[in-house]
């Protein structure tokens, strides 16, 4: 029998210690970094291959990609876009060039543009019409060769034509932003008037107001017209020019109408006349007449306006408005009896894209005037809205 080899206790302990150390050292192996998440492109390939042959890819990888897909990752490849050449804007849109101000297609459309002979009244405020892109549906009305008119319908020669401001309340004045424009029709005897607002509504005075004409020392007569029904009251206080038959042919200043029983009350200022007849216009154009008109505005009578109308083959006008607080100039075209500003002819301090001068030549030789409105935004001053009746000064050219 072979002898049994016995280890000593010390040796056995050493062996056990070494085994423990080896085990510990083995457990302290550096942690392997978890494999990096596959990229979207890699997942696309993995999933594509898995769809064909599920055994061809590692399941854990497939699971990772599925988890990423569930989280919203997109693995669809994005095709490259072909390069887009820069657009030739000038060819597509003439209003994108520097000559836009001189292009009749570029500074309309105006809601007041309507066929000759009248049409439906505009339905938005003047300020909303001055940005062409806000009313693209009206662009069809704008055709080359037709000069647009302002937001208020044009004044046909020989017909009554007036411009008014409208404010809420009885005082005729309010902040410019709270002041709207409208047309005013005045009876020739001064006994009634109608305000036609841009929204299509109408303010009609009480019928048959009582009138009294008063003396003035400035070439005008004064008119006080008042009327009252059970619950409505109207009034007019105006400078007027009357013809030989006593009919009013030019008028300006204060109007008011409203309820005495808690209903709406409106008021404002106005400038009114009978648009110069076609015969009168023809004579002015045939004679290449240049006529100058001047006078105070009505809302702020510290503003003095002067306008020169040049008749002939290409009628045009220019003007200045001077106030102790500001001054600006403008110019534009004359079409029939209508005057309308051209954006490119405003002075530099006018925000042309937000400004407008519209008016009409009123009266006949010897008693001509210009009734007009200004709706301008001035740098450093803000919005100015006013109406004014200007009288012809000493003629500068041959008179028809």
């Amino acid at each position, binding site marked *: 029998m072979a002898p049994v080899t016995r280890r000593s206790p010390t040796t056995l302990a050493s062996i056990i210690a070494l085994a423990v150390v080896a085990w510990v050292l083995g457990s302290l192996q550096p942690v392997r970094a978890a494999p990096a998440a596959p990229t979207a492109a890699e997942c696309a390939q993995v999933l594509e291959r898995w769809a064909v042959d599920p055994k061809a890819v590692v399941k854990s990888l497939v699971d990772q990609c599925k988890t990423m897909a569930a989280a919203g990752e997109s693995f669809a490849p994005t095709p490259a876009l072909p390069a887009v050449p820069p657009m030739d804007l000038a060819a597509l849109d003439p209003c994108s060039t520097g000559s836009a101000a001189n292009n009749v297609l570029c500074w309309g459309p105006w809601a007041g543009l309507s066929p000759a002979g009248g049409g439906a009244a505009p339905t938005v405020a003047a300020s909303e019409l001055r940005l062409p892109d806000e009313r693209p549906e009206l662009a069809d009305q704008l055709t080359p060769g037709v000069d647009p008119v302002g937001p208020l319908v044009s004044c046909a020669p020989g017909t009554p034509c007036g411009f008014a401001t409208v404010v809420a309340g009885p005082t005729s004045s309010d902040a410019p932003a709270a002041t709207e424009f409208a047309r005013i029709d005045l009876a020739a005897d001064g006994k009634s008037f109608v305000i036609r607002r841009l929204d299509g509504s109408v303010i009609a005075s009480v019928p048959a107001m009582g009138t009294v004409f*008063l003396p003035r020392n400035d070439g005008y007569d004064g008119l006080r017209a008042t009327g009252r029904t059970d619950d409505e009251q109207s009034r007019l206080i105006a400078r007027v020019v009357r013809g030989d038959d006593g009919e009013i042919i030019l008028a300006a200043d204060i109007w008011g109408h409203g309820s005495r029983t808690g209903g709406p009350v409106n008021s404002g200022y106005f400038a009114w006349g009978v648009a110069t007849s076609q015969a009168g216009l023809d004579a002015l154009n045939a004679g290449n007449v240049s006529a100058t008109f001047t006078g105070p505005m009505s809302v702020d009578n510290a503003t003095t306006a002067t306008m020169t109308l040049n008749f002939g083959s290409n009628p045009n006008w220019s003007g200045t408005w001077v106030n102790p607080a500001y001054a600006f100039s403008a110019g534009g075209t004359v079409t029939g009896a209508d005057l309308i500003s051209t954006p490119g002819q405003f002075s530099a301090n006018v925000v042309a894209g937000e400004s407008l001068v519209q008016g009409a030549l009123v009266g006949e030789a010897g008693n001509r005037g210009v009734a007009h409105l200004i709706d301008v935004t001035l740098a450093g001053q803000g919005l100015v809205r006013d109406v004014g009746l200007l009288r012809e000064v000493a003629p500068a050219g041959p008179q028809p």
Partner: protein
Amino acid sequence: MKRFIARTALLLLTLPAAVGTAQASLIVPTEGSVYLQPSSPTVGTGASFTVAVVLNATGVGNVPGAYDGQFVIDFDPIELRFDAFALAPGVSFFSGPATGSAGSRQTITIGFIDSTGANVIDGTGTGSIGRFSFTALATPGTIATIGIADADDLFGSFVSNAPTYQPFYPAFQGAQVGVIPVPAAGLLLASALGGLGLRRRRGATASA
């Protein structure tokens, strides 16, 4: 006698500031004023006096300047009798004087214009529109009030008329006039004369 003097003195000392009984207006005064200015704060029963209508255009803008307007005054016809209204130089009527009534009070409505370049409002900013003449009918001790207001209580009728018509909204202030029986000096004179007469009679009786 002493009671009369004391009552008159008390009336004079306690006469309150004039406050017009103006009609309610929808317009809030913003600038200037129109007020009544009696020729005297007191008047004897049966005596005549005048009340000026003054326009103060301070703050309105045109000073000097021309102004138009229409106002209405009211008073108790038992206390006062309206005799006449005289316009100031350069001022014209465009309406009235028209009499009417508002309850128990009598009204007089006047529309005036200053369109001749006379400029009612002078460089001081004030000017007289005209002058009412009244006769006091009230019993002594009465305080007669005269109210004034814009004749147009919706839109207001007052305007500055040059270079264009522009409305303005003045404050309106009426007036009060105290009615006293007889002037105190006259009473004193009467009592003094009466005392002299009594003394003479006593002296004559004594010598007789």
